[in-house]
């Protein structure tokens, strides 16, 4: 019996390891390939990205997936970081779009979630249901209304067209409400007896109680918006204002080598957040696990 169990666990371990390698592969490949020189990229992947035939002759017809570059070269990184300021500018565009979205969304959501948690009324339950539906709507449905309203407000083609809909997205409201409902009512009632007003209860009790929740939601929202493509593509047609994520997705065949290096640089903020706050992230995901509080 014991032996059988150990064997079963070993089998599970091997199976998990195989899956884990498959899951890591694309990420690892992105990183190692970013250290290839342009000529090596062309030699290995030339035939994949030669869609636009530009008269170049590639060494091999076959595609050569390589894990380790023949010679480690930082030339792509040097190009990205020092030679063309375009990439850094777009990186900065991403920062000034995503950071306000995260801060505003979490801030507005904290207020709204507090309201949903305290005093339940029929109207609010209905409203909460409405928020959930809104949260679950595919982007294609909200895109048209978004575009219309940005046009109407005259903010189309400014970063506000991306930031404002992001700031009011109902996802954080939903998650935070679920966190806040776990705060013991006794705590709030006790504060009320001491004469604390709504704002004090919110500031002094609710916010400190769900500090980890705020953090985990901020990570989830950040990762989501850091990789956004559709919203800026449609609402922010001026390419000098677009974030790096959009630029990455429009990269053309001549720049594949750079694309890997840009992707690695772009991955760093979310990677750091992820490694630093993985426990929070997992907690956040766990709380999203059912549509009801």
């Amino acid at each position: 019996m014991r032996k059988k169990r150990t064997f079963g666990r070993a089998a599970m371990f091997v199976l998990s390891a195989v899956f884990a390698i498959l899951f890591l592969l694309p990420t690892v490949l992105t990183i190692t390939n970013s250290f290839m020189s342009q000529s090596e990229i062309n030699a290995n992947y030339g035939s994949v990205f030669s869609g636009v035939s530009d008269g170049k002759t590639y060494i091999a017809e076959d595609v050569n997936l390589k894990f380790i570059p023949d010679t480690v070269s930082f030339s792509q990184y040097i190009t990205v970081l020092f030679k063309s300021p375009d990439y850094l500018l777009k990186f900065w565009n991403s920062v000034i779009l995503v950071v306000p979205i995260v801060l505003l969304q979490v801030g507005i959501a904290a207020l709204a979630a507090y309201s949903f948690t305290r005093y339940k009324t029929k109207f609010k339950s209905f409203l909460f249901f409405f928020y959930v539906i809104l949260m679950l709507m595919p982007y294609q449905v909200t895109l048209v209304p978004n575009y219309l309203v940005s046009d109407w407000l005259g903010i189309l083609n400014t970063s506000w067209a991306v930031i404002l809909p992001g700031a009011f997205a109902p996802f954080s409201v939903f998650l935070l409400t679920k966190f806040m409902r776990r705060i013991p009512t006794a705590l709030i009632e006790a504060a009320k007896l001491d004469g604390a007003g709504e704002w004090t209860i919110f500031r002094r009790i609710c916010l400190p109680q769900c500090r980890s929740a705020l953090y985990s939601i901020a990570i989830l929202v950040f990762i989501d918006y850091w990789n956004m493509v559709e919203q800026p593509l449609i609402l922010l047609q001026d390419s000098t204002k677009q974030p790096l994520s959009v630029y990455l997705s429009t990269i053309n065949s001549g720049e594949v080598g750079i694309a890997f290096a840009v992707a690695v640089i772009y991955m760093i903020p979310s990677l750091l957040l992820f490694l630093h706050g993985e426990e929070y992230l997992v907690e956040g995901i766990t709380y999203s696990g059912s549509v009801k509080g």
Partner: protein
Amino acid sequence: MKAILRKKEGNKTAAPRLSGRRRWREFLGSSAFLGPSLIGVGVFFIIPFFIVVYYSLINNPVQKEFVFLDNFKKLFDNYSFKVAATNTLRFSGVAVPAAVILSLLLALMLECRIPLKSQFRTFFLSPMMVPIASVVLIWQVLFHYNGTVNQIMALFGVDKIDWLRSEHCMLVVTLLFLWKNLGYNMILFMANLANIPKELLEVAEVEGAGKLYTFFRIKLRYLSPTILFVTILSLINSFKVFREVYLLTGDYPYEGLYMLQHFMANTFRSLDYQKLASAAVVMAIVMVFIIALLFIVEDRFGKDVEQ
């Protein structure tokens, strides 16, 4: 005094006993907190949505003649819409069950107290933060006609497949979808598995219940609300797969990959508001149905498990 009374009786029963003025004040106080969010949601989502509904019911933005369901009839007669809707349904029909079953299996695998469990969890979650564009590059290398997958298959004597320009394209996109989403779903299942009362499982073991029996009769029952939630979540994520397909194959991919999202994006570019609006309304109605179903089903199954 009132506060003490409320505390004794608990929030729910106490609420109606409050005096009118007090309740009004509390309602106002709480509404103030909801204000910013409500204004934003109203301006950016609710009002414009009604404008979209309005657009779907008129003949064109200039004449503004009310034509009721004509736009919808036209939409359902539209060839691209039909292709797009069929493909989206087909994709979701394959990808969603696969996402649910595989992520449950992953969660069960990690449940087995294997070494390096938390590292594996990290690895499975890692696709979340990789920029999709760079992953698409890798996918193109893997599934190119002269690409890695075909090379590996050649070793086993299998003929080359043009993955992205044949019926097999769906499989390529499904794999990308699974790679991206399994980790998140797995976390949901893992949290749920950890919540199953240990005593119950121990009793089952003492009574001599087999692994399969325990799984189907106990675990699956406890998991059912999460399974439903993951199903809906995957369904919604399967609508988001456009970004990947678009990056892999562009505006007009192989017909088998032409999804509702392509239809929306291409219609958007031609600024055909009536077509766009009616398609958005149809999608919204379908989504509300699915979500309402989730609420109802969760209600029924949830009661079964909660003591």
